[in-house]
Structures are given as C-alpha cells and as structure tokens.
C-alpha cells in the first residue's frame, strides 16, 4: 500500500481551482517531486497534505488513514517551509527540540536526538546560535533537522533550495538526496526548478493549472513528455506543429516554415490529416556544413549562446522556422553568426505529442 494516497482531491480559492481533481500515490521511502510553474497549485497540494488547508472534495490518506478531519498537529507528516520558519526566539537546539517537546519526549532522549539531528546536517557546533546569526544555508540545514527530528513517515519540502545561491544549491541537492537515503524517510518535494526535480527525485509529477499532467521517473518525463506543456516546461525543446501526411511507406509531418516533410518516429499511427506536435530536445539536433544524406533542414546560425561547457545555437530557416540546438562548446567553435548549416536528427529522437 502506498504511504501517501491522494484520491480526487480538489481545492478552490474563490472561483479558481488551485488543486483540481488530483490523484496521486507516493510509495514508502520514495523521493518524489511535484514540479510546476508558480501558481500551478503544487504548494496548495502540499498544504492539503500537511493539513493547513482542507480539500473541498476528495480524500487524503497517509498510511491508509484518512486525514481529512485530522488537524495539522496530529498528522504524521512534517514540513520544511520555503522561508524555513525558524522560531526567532529559540536557539538552533531549541528549534530542533520543539517538535520533540510537543511529543513529551523525556529530556535526555530529546537532547540525544537533537544532537543526532544536528550531526546529520553538520550543524553540531551551532546549537546555541539564534536563527538570525545563521547564513541562509545554515538556516536551511536547521529547518531540515527540525522537520526530521520527529522522524515523520513523510517529509514535505516546500521549495527547499529556492533561497540558496546557485553553487550552494548544487551541494545541498546532493546532501538532501544523501540524507534521504540515510534516514529512509519519504520525501515529497515541491519545486518550480526542473533541473532540481530531475536531479533529486525518483519520481516526478508535473502540475499545471491545478492538475497533474504527467507522472513518472525523471528520464520518462524528459524523454517522453506526454504534452506540449511538459515538453516545454521540463528542459528546452523544439516544437514542430503540423499536419500528418502519408508518404511512400512512412508518415511524415508537414510543418510551416519548410517545404520538406519532417520524418516521424515509426511507432506513430494516427490517421493522415491529423494535427500533431513533434518535440525535439536541442541536444538531439546535429549540425553540419555539408548536406548530409537523407532528411535535413537548411538553416543559418542566428546567434550562439555560450554557457561554458555547453553552447546553445539558435538557427533560422529561410522560411522563418526557428530551431535551437545544444552542443559541447568545443564542437560549436567552427560556427558563427550567419553561417549556413544543415540541421538533422534521427527520427526516433523526436517525440510525437498528440493532444
């Protein structure tokens, strides 16, 4: 049985549905990410699980127990707040001990647990500090230690890395996965950062406008997006919209911006004339100066975005179709603005989206 089971939950604020008929289950020990742009309802969903909001309809079960009527303080979940919400009047140890005191844990055991938790997040030397004396990264660690101290079955993390700077974010992401593996607690992370979700989670649910649009492991979300929204939101993508045309023995796509029919991966078989979208990741696009055999689009380099190891090449065909390619910067060295190139890709690298 799943640890967390959300069945058809909805939550409206005035006329808008923040969470719209969401069903979701999270397994014990899983590192699960809710990914979506701001305002998609992911934080509301998290607050429904924590008990700060009650669903208008639907049910939330934790460990098989219905939670709808259970107040936040009686739920077997803890939350790490985006703002960390550390108590300013208590020192670090006092913050970590707060939840344990509510349990009525006896003093010696409590102190031992606080010590353990601070050691887990490498903050052992900071027990007597007040929150305002800590850096952002240190506050984040204390918040994590405080949320883990009660050893909840499910830990909810609201944008845990959002207020850290980039370098620290990378480190903390690794640490967070390490800690999750060590303590074995189920983590449910809310994030708007696709890189974060792809890098941390074992499974991702992508949310848009209150609804779950796709749920699956990171590779599936990235490689096989099931909608334009997911393809576009998770990573960069080239989207070709067009009409299906029948060829000699294969189907291809007639798109605006080029006369050439674009080949499709073999697995597709909607009827001819159907409109569909082809999604292609920029790194799947291969550029060459000479015309290759088979399908290729002629384009000119519009601009090159240097990002260190990788470079993004923006291309445009004569008819105005814009393309985006990504490659190691070393391979992009011979390219420059205005150079004519041929762009091609293996048909099976593109994903057909039919919605």
């Amino acid at each position, binding site marked *: 049985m799943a640890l967390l089971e959300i069945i058809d939950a909805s939550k409206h604020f005035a006329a808008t549905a923040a969470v719209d008929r969401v069903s979701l289950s999270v397994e014990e020990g899983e590192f699960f990410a809710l990914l979506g742009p701001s305002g998609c309802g992911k934080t509301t969903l998290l607050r429904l699980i*924590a*008990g*700060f909001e009650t669903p208008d309809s639907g049910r939330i079960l934790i460990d098989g127990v219905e939670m709808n009527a259970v*107040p*936040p*303080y*009686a739920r077997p*979940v*803890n*939350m790490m*707040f985006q*703002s960390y*919400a*550390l*108590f*300013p*009047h208590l020192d670090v140890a006092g913050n970590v001990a*707060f*939840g344990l*005191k*509510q*349990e009525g844990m006896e003093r010696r055991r409590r102190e031992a647990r606080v010590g353990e938790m601070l050691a887990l997040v490498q903050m052992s030397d900071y027990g007597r500090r*007040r929150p*305002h004396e800590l850096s952002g990264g240190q506050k984040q660690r204390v918040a994590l230690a*405080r949320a883990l101290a*009660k050893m909840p079955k499910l830990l909810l993390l609201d944008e845990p890395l959002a207020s850290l700077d980039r370098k620290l974010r990378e480190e903390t992401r690794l640490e967070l996965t390490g800690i999750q593996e060590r303590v074995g607690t189920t983590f449910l992370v809310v994030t708007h950062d696709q890189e974060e979700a792809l890098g941390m989670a074992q499974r991702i649910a992508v949310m848009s406008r209150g609804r779950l649009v796709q749920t699956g492991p990171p590779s599936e979300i990235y490689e096989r997006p099931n909608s334009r929204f997911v393809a576009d939101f998770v990573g960069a993508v080239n989207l070709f919209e067009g009409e299906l045309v029948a060829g000699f023995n294969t189907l291809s796509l007639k798109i605006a911006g080029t006369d050439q029919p674009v080949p499709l991966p073999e697995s597709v078989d909607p009827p001819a004339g159907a409109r569909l979208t082809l999604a292609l990741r920029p790194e799947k696009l291969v550029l060459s100066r000479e015309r290759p055999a088979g399908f290729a689009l002629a384009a000119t380099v519009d601009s090159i975005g240097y990002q260190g190891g990788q470079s993004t090449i923006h291309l445009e065909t004569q008819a105005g179709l814009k393309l985006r390619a990504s490659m190691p910067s070393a391979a992009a060295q011979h390219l420059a603005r205005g150079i004519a190139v041929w762009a091609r890709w293996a048909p099976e690298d593109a994903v057909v989206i039919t919605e």
Partner: protein
Amino acid sequence: MTGLGIWAKRALIGLPFLWLSVFFLLPLVIVAGISLAESADAIPPFKPVLSLTSTGLHSDATLGNYRELAEGCLRACANSLLYAALATLICLVIGYPVAFAIARAPGTWRHLLLFLVMLPFWTSFLIRVYAWIAILQPSGLVNRLLLAMGLVEMPVPLLYNGFSVELGLVYSYLPFMILPLYGSLARLDDTLIEAAADLGAPPWRVFLGVILPLTLPGIAAGTLLVFIPAVGEFVIPDLLGGPDTLMIGKLLWQEFFDNVDWPAASAMAMALVAVVTLPLLVMQRLVAREARA
C-alpha cells in the same frame, strides 16, 4: 567621513540631548531642589535651598518632606500602584484577544476596527470620564437598567469607589494597550504558527510557545503605556474616586494647589518618578533582550 560630517552628526545627536536637558532634565532638577526646601508663606512658597550669605554658601536642604511623605502618602502611593497594576492587567487580558482578532481580521475590517479603537481620542478625555458619572450614578443608566430588570431593589453604589476608578482607568487606557499589541501581532509571521502546528503543537501550545514569546515586546510596550500614566493619573480618581481611593496624582494636586505646599508636592513628584522608573528599566531590559533575538 569628513570633519563636517562628524560635526553634522554630533549636532544631530546633540539636538535631542539639548531638548531633553532644557525641557526634561532642568525642570526635574528644579523639582528635586524644591522637594528639599522648607515650606514658607512666601512667593514662591518655599525657602531657598541654597543661599549665598556673608559667611559663604549656606544650605537649608532638608529631607523632612520625604519623611512626611513616607508617613502621609504611603496609602495613596500603595493605592496608585495597586490600581495602576490592576488596570494594566485587566487591559492586557481584554486587549490581547481584541488585538489578536484585529490582527487576524480581513483587510478592510482591520482598518475599520483599528479606527474604532482610536475613535474615543476624538472626544475630550475629560468629557468621556464625565460621561461615566452619568452612566454609573445611582440614577444612572446602569442602575436604572438593573432596577427595571428587577435584579436589584436599591441602586448599587457604582460611583466614587474603587470600582469606578478601576473602570475609568481600564476604559481610558485600553487603546494604549491594544495598539502596541496589535503592532506586534500584525508583524507575527503566520508561517511560524503553521510551523509550530506542523511540529505537533495544539493551538494552546502554539500560543504559549510561539505567539506569546514573540509578542512580548508588544506586551511590554502596552504595559508601560498603561501603567506609567495610570500611576500618576489625576483626573480619573478626582472625578470617579471617593475618599478611599486617593491616588498619588490626586494627592499631589491637593498639596500643590489646595495646601500650597510646593516642597511636599515636589517630594511626592520625585517619589512618583522613582516608582515609575523601576518598572520602566526592567521592561526596557526585557524588550532589549527580545529585540536582540
């Protein structure tokens, strides 16, 4: 920083110092001086404390006024402290939930409620206290209501006693408790309350463990704003009090204007300053400690 900057800075700090010295410290020193003088039938009605005679500087300072004070107005002093402390406590008990409700009310309501709290300031304080006489007197609103409902057979003595003084103090100073409490409650971060609940604290423990300690500065400010003026209050015991409810402010008035004993009145004023300064220092220490956190 340039030399000019330093001087500008010094002037900036010096200005309030000058102000306080001229309008606060100097009068206080004069009052302290008078409190050491002997009463006399003269203008002004006391003998000079220091006088320059042919034999040199001569001092007539006496602690007699303070000795008299210790005997004469101990009761008024105790009354003042008691009434003021009780009024402060009642204001806190009433004011905290009111401030809490205002701070949690939706936006438009919040402004309206705050406006209502401040509304009494639009009328003269004196008139509002007079109004209580009309309400509390034997033929007043409350007694007529009680009689009409048959709850009492004779008018209840509500006026010119400890009850009416206390009521007047609470009524007059309640806004001074509510406003600073509202200030610190409105600043309270809601996620802290949610975090406490999330960590397993039921509502009453959220209040004791998080809300109360974080609003301590507001409680301290409100307590001072009520207690200090209430201790020295003159109008309320004068209008609503009786012979048993003598407060130090009233006594001071009597000594000054009725008995024309300026030295005794000055000694009393100094005693009042001493009484009020102590809780002020304690509170300030408390607030400073919280503010550092």
